[in-house]
């Protein structure tokens, strides 16, 4: 059987999700037997050529040239999978979507005119059709191998879409929100991390993004009763997945 051709692409991001591929220390050599990694700039010198069976895309769209590049990559790809909070939700850098870009540039660069960036950072799915999304900041490496293997055998990946609370219950972790009264985003956040923060006795900060049909308003009312201000609540949602939480919140209020 001909090995499917994989391309790994990066837009605006920290490289952490593509590093997840190299962090599959036990599986990577097997993966290389099953797939032809034909483009992966972080790990090989291979130039960009031809079509891909699967393109794995990290990072958000935040410059003009990226808008063009993502269309080119889509046209080269039979399937396109986005990985991580930047690619699925614009990432931390999407916080500029709710601020003024000119003031942002001024804070970082002495000569802001030399810098050209879009005023927004947006997920890949705002620009091209995406076949499958892997959420998380960073993604879970087991979810990535599950997705790749599912592709090979032609099934839908078994990635949870329910909330983090399910994962906490399964791990027998006492509820931080109810027992300790700490503002935990677990009820509105996708499972998939393995209940990491809560196992370290800290509330979830939402790095896997909103679960489908999350009732954000209800949780915010609960936080309000715990004594949090409106500003505190927004600050909790406005992190690596601010774009997605804001979107789900607006949709939920309609």
């Amino acid at each position, binding site marked *: 059987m001909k090995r499917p051709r994989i391309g790994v692409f990066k837009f605006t*991001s920290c*490289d952490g999700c593509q590093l997840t591929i190299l962090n599959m220390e036990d599986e990577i050599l097997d993966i290389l037997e099953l797939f032809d990694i034909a483009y992966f700039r972080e790990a090989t010198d291979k130039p960009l050529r031809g079509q891909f069976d699967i393109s794995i895309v990290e990072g958000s769209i*935040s410059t003009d040239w990226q808008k063009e590049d993502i269309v080119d990559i889509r046209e080269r790809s039979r399937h396109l999978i986005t990985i991580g909070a930047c690619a699925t939700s614009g990432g931390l850098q999407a916080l500029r979507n709710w601020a003024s870009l000119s003031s942002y540039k001024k804070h970082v660069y002495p000569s802001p005119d030399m810098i050209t960036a879009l005023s927004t950072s947006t997920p890949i799915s705002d620009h091209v059709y995406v076949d499958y999304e892997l959420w998380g900041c960073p993604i879970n490496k087991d979810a990535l191998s599950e997705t790749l293997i599912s592709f090979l055998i032609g099934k839908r990946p078994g990635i949870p879409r329910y909330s983090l609370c399910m994962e906490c219950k399964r791990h027998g972790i006492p509820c931080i929100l109810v027992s300790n009264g700490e503002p935990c985003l677990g009820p509105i956040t996708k499972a998939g991390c393995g209940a990491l923060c809560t196992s370290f006795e800290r509330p979830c900060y939402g790095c896997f993004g909103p679960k489908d049909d999350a009732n954000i308003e209800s949780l915010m009312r609960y936080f309000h009763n715990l004594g949090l201000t409106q500003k505190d609540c927004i600050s909790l949602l406005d992190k690596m997945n601010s774009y997605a939480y804001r979107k789900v919140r607006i949709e939920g209020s309609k």
Partner: protein
Amino acid sequence: MHTGRCELKAVSKIIKVDYLSRVEGEGGLVIEIKNGRTAKLRVNIFEAPRFFESFLRGRPYSDVMDFTARICGICPVAYQMSSVHAIEKIFCIEVEKPIRELRRLLYCGEWIESHALHIYLLNGPDFFGIESAWAAKEYLPIAKKGLTFKKLGNKILTILGGRSVHPVSVRIGGFYKTPGKKALAALLPELEKAYEESLKEIKWAVGLNFNDNSWDTEYVSLTHQDEYPMNHGSVASNKGLIMPMEKFIESVQEYQVEYSTALHSGIKRDSSVSPYIVGPVSRLNLNHDRLPSEIKNVIRESNISLPVTNTQMGIIARTVELAYAFYEAIRIINGYDEPDKPFVDFEIGAGEAVWITEAPRGILIHRYELDDAGHVKSCTIIPPTSQNFGHMEADIYHFLQNNADKSEDFIKKESEKIIRSYDPCISCSVHVMKIEK
């Protein structure tokens, strides 16, 4: 074969590397040679800017470690360490010894993971003339060894922080939760084996082929009287510079160049700004006398002459530090007793502080100013790679002085190799935007 002089005289060419590969982030290289001399040389950075220093403004102090970690997926711990220490300094927090040691252990995990990635998967293939760590059968055993080391580094990070990329356990005053002695001790057999193996790797690295590109330059790192530096110390250089962290930031001039979205930096002296290098080579040159005698012996037996003056030998310094990180992890775990409380209590207050720690790629400078409520008023983040850009260009410039007449392919490959020997992390360096592509 061409050896003629007239040909050498007439050499004019433009050499372009559109995309640097086997580095983290997005950059390229342009070299223009006119009449056999380097007329223009620049490492282009077109990684898109993310404006961290802007969106951190107004955020509560407790967000800072989670946010800055996202600057880099390869060295998130470095960002957490520089920021947590800076903020603790503002709040006048002194952590207890077990916490200090656990943070050092966390750093050992990151040094191992990051160094192993660079030595075996990114830089190693250069010395074998292959395009990736899996491009040649002969290289696979070497790659596998690297993966075994890397996995162990990630294991330390996972036990201490839940996951290796953007760990979740670091907080102001200590950790959200500390591991039990047993969980850490379980790592010891693997660590001891890896340490023994890694000592041999120093000799392996010394045996690789290096082009000599030595020149008199300035090495900068932290230095500490009792230990090889990670989280504490003063800033020192081989040119007599020695100063506390908060003074060093005043000596660094960050400057913007039109072809890069990463700010460059140099050391201010009188009216000039001169490039300097940070990272494993600098650390080793300035701190080798703090290494344990066993590693010192291997350095002596391997005939590594110190200081290392050829930055292409970064891979040697990295293997020395890989061995040291294993040694240190074993020492810390053996002496560890779980603290009664994972963090100390503190009071929030206004203030400003600078802290510098040793990221795998060199000193990482953070400065924060907080208001009374503990919200960020302003901050400065100077990553190691942006400090190295100026030096990287100077290094290639030196190389070209003797090699401008060589083939384009040779110059291209060797220049890329020089850049890669810094283990540049372009994602980090860019608080940043595409100018040229």
